[in-house]
Structure formats: structure tokens, C-alpha cells
């Protein structure tokens, strides 16, 4: 492109003046206004936008909480209760933030599930998918460190158990643990660095989310049929069609969120975290937050410490290579009768692990966890690679528009790409 002023279409003279020098309005119009989006999204495609909103809510409430929170072992618990009692609407900020973490994981789990079911990880979207896995790992680290900050019993003992996992690694293990602790046990230096990192990582997440969206806007979205749009009759401009659809989903999401915050704010928490941390008293059962329970169950399903740790990390790292494990050219499970059943069973295994992770490490939960763990990995490492060769997929529709439009025919070329009036 030539050097010089951008050739702007903007009508408003002030907007045009800016746009000629820095075409952010043109960019927004291209990426969020007229951006061609498959016309057949179902409501599962709301969850990316919901995750974005959720991230913003977490950052906004977190900034206000940090203004009143004191990261010191002797003051942290009381400063959180001070937020609950004496800061104007502090209870609201804290409950939104705490339940927002749970909502974030619910939203992102559904988002990931959708990606797996409809094959959104397959070429050409492998990098988009991998960036998503990076976001998920960053979210887990952020959530784990955030849960430590109130310095209750589960904060302290959860931090002790999880950081100790790294000691399983040979040679470097103990060194990593000391680095995480900032000393020789979970103590004030640990709390300080976790607070610092808990404030830092969300902005790293914002950066990777940006890359995730850049990658998305190069390849375009997948869709429930898993076939690429072949022309304008297969797509709709993002605005107003998907802004309207996302808005409806967003309100429903807010309702679920509000029910948690206003009527069951501690339902997803653990009562022990309202007991101030005490290094001399170990809780009867140490459990992480609910969204980590599947991995906790995998960890405890393995009798060997290092093996358990490797399997636990492996359960998410395997997602990185999912695009190369699943070689079937058909994306959507709608057209893969066998993979569909195998994946729904995988979903059951995940939920079973989530359930078992919250139970004591005793029978029958250990055996159930082992079976579910075995299936969790078998799905990725055995079933998907085999099905890619053996499965006979159902016939794919010719195009999106033929499959979803009434009467089955493509619209006249102009109709779908009708220019939209928008601000």
C-alpha cells in the first residue's frame, strides 16, 4: 500500500480526518461491521463474545478490589472482609469477581466444547485453536493465584498442594517450588508474588485474546456444518445480525450470573475459605475450586506423584496437538456418527472427573476416576486418530445456504450482502 493518507469512506468530517490518518474506523467497520460471518451459527457461537465480556468484567471489578485489598498474610483475610462490610458496594464487587471466575470457566468450557464438537480446531484454524489453549492455561494460572489472595484455609492449603506438585519433577522440581514460594513454605512472599502476577496475567490474557481474534479474522469463523462459506449467499455481515444475536445471549448470560451473585454467592466456594489461613491446621479435605476438579481427579487417579502430575498437565497440553490427532477432513460431528458418540462419551468422562475431583480420594471414586482418565486420553490418542481413517462420514451439504435457507436455494447475490446502515 502506498504511503499517504488513507482513502476513507467515513461521512463525518472529524471521523474522516482521524480515519485518513489512522484508519481505525475503517478497520472496525471491516472487522465488526461488514465482516462476513457464516449465516448458520447456533447459540454456541455466543460464547466467544461472552468470554470477552467476562474478561472485561473481571478486570474492571479486580481493579477496584485491588484498591482495597492488602496483600499481607496478617491483613489479607481482614481486608477482604472489610471490602465486604465497609467499602461501598464492596460485597457486590467481590461477589461479582469471585463468581465471575466461575462464570468465566463455565463460558470458556462451553466455548472449548463447541470448538471440539464442530471441529473448529482443524485446518486452517490450528493456530487460532492453539492460542485459545494458551488463553485457557493463562486463565487457570490467574484463577489459581486469585483464589489464594483471600488467604483462607483453602487458599493456603490449595496453594501448598498445587505448588508442591512441581516438586515431583526431577532435578529442577525443588528449585521451581522455592521460586514459586519465594522461600521455604507458602508464606508472605508467596502471597505478594501471587498478587502481583494475578494483576499482571489478565493483561497478558488480553494480549493473547487479541491474537486469537486476529487469527479468527484471517480464517473466518467455523460454523455448525463445518463447511467453508463459498460466497456471499453463505454469509451475513457481523452487524447487525450477530451483534443482535450476541446481545440476546449476553442478557441470558447476565441472568445466570446475577442468580449466582445475588442469591447463591458462596454456593461455588468452599466454607473453609472463610476460616483464616492457619499453617498448623490442615483441613479434612483439601479441594481446589470446582473448575480444577477434573484435573485434580486425574492427578489423584495416578498412584505415582510424577506420573499424576504429568498426566494432569498432559490432559490440557494434549489439546495443543488435537488438530493433528484428528485427521478426519470432516469438521462437524454432525456428519461423523462414530466420533460424535465418542466425543459425547468424552464429555461424560470430563463431567465424571469433575464430580470425582470433589470427592475424597477413596473408593469407589478412585476407580471411577481411573476409568474416566483412561477414556479421556484414549479419546484423543487412540479413538480420534483411528476414526480419522476408519469412519465413513455422512454426506456434507453442498453449501451453507443450501442447507439452512428455506426453499434450499441460494439468495440472489445482492440480498445477503445488503449494505447495512450503522453508526
Amino acid at each position, binding site marked *: 500500500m502506498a504511503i499517504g493518507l488513507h482513502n476513507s469512506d467515513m461521512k463525518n468530517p472529524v471521523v474522516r480526518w482521524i480515519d485518513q490518518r489512522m484508519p481505525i474506523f475503517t478497520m472496525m467497520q471491516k472487522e465488526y461491521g461488514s465482516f462476513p460471518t457464516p*449465516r448458520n451459527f447456533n447459540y454456541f457461537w455466543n460464547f466467544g463474545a461472552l468470554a470477552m465480556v467476562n474478561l472485561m468484567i473481571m478486570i474492571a471489578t479486580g481493579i477496584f478490589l485491588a484498591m482495597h485489598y492488602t496483600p499481607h498474610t496478617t491483613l489479607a483475610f481482614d481486608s477482604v472482609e472489610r471490602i465486604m*462490610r465497609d467499602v461501598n458496594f464492596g460485597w457486590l464487587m467481590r461477589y461479582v469477581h469471585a463468581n465471575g471466575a466461575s462464570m468465566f470457566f463455565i463460558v470458556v468450557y462451553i466455548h472449548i466444547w463447541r470448538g471440539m464438537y464442530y471441529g473448529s480446531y482443524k485446518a486452517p484454524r490450528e493456530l487460532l485453536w492453539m492460542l485459545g489453549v494458551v488463553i485457557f492455561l493463562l486463565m487457570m494460572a490467574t484463577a489459581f493465584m486469585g483464589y489464594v489472595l483471600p488467604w483462607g484455609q483453602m487458599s493456603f492449603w490449595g496453594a501448598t498442594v498445587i505448588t508442591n506438585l512441581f516438586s515431583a519433577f526431577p532435578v529442577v522440581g525443588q528449585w521451581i517450588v522455592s521460586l514459586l514460594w519465594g522461600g521455604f513454605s507458602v508464606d508472605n512472599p508467596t502471597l505478594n508474588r501471587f498478587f502481583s502476577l494475578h494483576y499482571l496475567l489478565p493483561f497478558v490474557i488480553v494480549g493473547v485474546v487479541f491474537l486469537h481474534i486476529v487469527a479468527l479474522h484471517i480464517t473466518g469463523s467455523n460454523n455448525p456444518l463445518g463447511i467453508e462459506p463459498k460466497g456471499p449467499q453463505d454469509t451475513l455481515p457481523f452487524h447487525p*445480525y450477530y451483534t443482535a444475536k450476541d446481545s440476546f445471549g449476553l442478557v441470558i448470560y447476565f441472568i445466570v450470573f446475577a442468580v449466582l451473585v445475588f442469591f447463591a454467592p458462596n454456593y461455588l466456594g468452599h466454607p473453609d475459605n472463610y*476460616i483464616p489461613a492457619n499453617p498448623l491446621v490442615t483441613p479434612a479435605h483439601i479441594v481446589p475450586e470446582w473448575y480444577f476438579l477434573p484435573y485434580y481427579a486425574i492427578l489423584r487417579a495416578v498412584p505415582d506423584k510424577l506420573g499424576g502430575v504429568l498426566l494432569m498437565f498432559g490432559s490440557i497440553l494434549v489439546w495443543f496437538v488435537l488438530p493433528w490427532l484428528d485427521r478426519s477432513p470432516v469438521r462437524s460431528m454432525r456428519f461423523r456418527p462414530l466420533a460424535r458418540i465418542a466425543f459425547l462419551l468424552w464429555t461424560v468422562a470430563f463431567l465424571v472427573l469433575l464430580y470425582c475431583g470433589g470427592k475424597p480420594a477413596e473408593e469407589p471414586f478412585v476407580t471411577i476416576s481411573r476409568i474416566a482418565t483412561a477414556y479421556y486420553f484414549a479419546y484423543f490418542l487412540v479413538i480420534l486418530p483411528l476414526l480419522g481413517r476408519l469412519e465413513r462420514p455422512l454426506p456434507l451439504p453442498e453449501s451453507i445456504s443450501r442447507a439452512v435457507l428455506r426453499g434450499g436455494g441460494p439468495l440472489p447475490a445482492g440480498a445477503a450482502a445488503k449494505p447495512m446502515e450503522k453508526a
Partner: protein
Amino acid sequence: MFRTTLKAFAVIGGLLAALPSPAGAAGDEIHLPPVRFSFDGVFGTYDRASAQRGFQVYKEVCAACHAMRLISYRNLRELGLTEQQVAAIASQVQIQDGPNDEGQMFERPGRPSDRFRSPFPNDAAARAANNNSLPPDLSVITKARAGGAAYIYALMTGYSEPPAGVTVAEGMNYNQYFPGHQIAMAPPLNPDQVQFADGTPATVENMARDVATFLQWAAEPELEQRRGMGVKIILFLTVLAGLAYAVKRKIWADAH
């Protein structure tokens, strides 16, 4: 389209239903006796008279051993006490303050802005006076125990002779609702232990319910405001959802 929406919410519902409840995570199967409180349910509020009686029980019984270091005397205004009543209650205790201009610590009568005075200066003193057991701080106790206020009520009314074959250790007491059943705290409530000004009979059950109500208020003073706000927000969002759906339908009308 709507079918898929329902599917999406079935997934959310499934996720929520699959979550182990915190109480379940505790593992110990203890069934609390049924008890009803004014703050039960979605629209429940605090029974101020009950919470005031509960404060009296706390002040005259529990406060001998249990601190509530996160609560200030001024907070009692929320239970319907007047400014004068709160000032009078606060002034009954001596609070250490200082240092003054000469660098000396001194004692002064309590003020409404003071936190509840703790019965012991530190945990070691509390243990020394209680057979080496630490009476927990009660500020957030209903949030810190599975079962919440119902657990407090159960604990207060759950003392009995140990069943045949169960031996209770020296200095411990049998309580059917305490995890492990052996609790260091002696039965705290006895009939007519306090005298309620409003003529409520001071049975163990009444005192237990009142003190559980008071402790629930102390743990969640925002509960009424929270629920009131929640009702309004959810009604608003429900209407907004209807509007957003109508807008979506209208915009999509030409796209099917």
C-alpha cells in the same frame, strides 16, 4: 434455533448440577435437623427481634470465649438499635487505646466505632483458658461452616450423653452434629440462662435460633440489600432478554 438455545442452557445446567456441593465435598455425612429461619429462601429477611435477642445471647454467653473481631458496635444499628443504645452497649467495655501524648497506652470506654472487644488478647491466651482448644472467631462463622446457620442451631441443640460404646475424651463433650462428635465446648446454652426483655421464653431452642440468626446477620450483613437488588436486576434483565430476542427476530426476519 430455539432448540439449540435450550441445548446450550441444558449444558450450563448440566455443568451446575454436576458440581459437588461444598457440603458434599466435606465428606462427613451429618444430617442437620430441620430448622426454619426468617432469612430462608430467596426473599427471606432478618427477623430484627430475633437477631437482637441473639446478640443478647452472644453478649451474655458466647462472648465469654468467642471473639467477633470483624464486627463493630456501630453495626448493631442495622439490627434496629438506636444510636443511644449502641453507645451504651459500647461504653460497657474497656478498650485499650494509645499511645497518648506521653507515649502511654490507656484504657477508655468503648465507642460505637470500636470493633467488638475480644475476650482474650491473643490465641495463646484463648487456648490457655480453654483446655488448649481455640474458640473460633464468630464474625463469619455461618459462612465458614457447611450448613451455615442451620449448623449453628444444630450444634447448640445437639449435646447429649454419648451413645453406648462411645467414650468421650477427658474435657470433651459429645455433640451429634459436630464433625467427629467430640467438642471441647461444654453445652453453652441452658434453659433460662438469659432473660429476654420481650418476654420470649429462653428455651435452648429459642436461644439457639436467635443466636444463629444473629451470627448469620454478622456474617452476611449485606444479605437483604443483595437480595433486594438481585430481584430488581433479574426482573430488569428478563424484560431486556425479551426485548433483545424481539430485536434479534426482527433483524433476522429477512435472513432465513
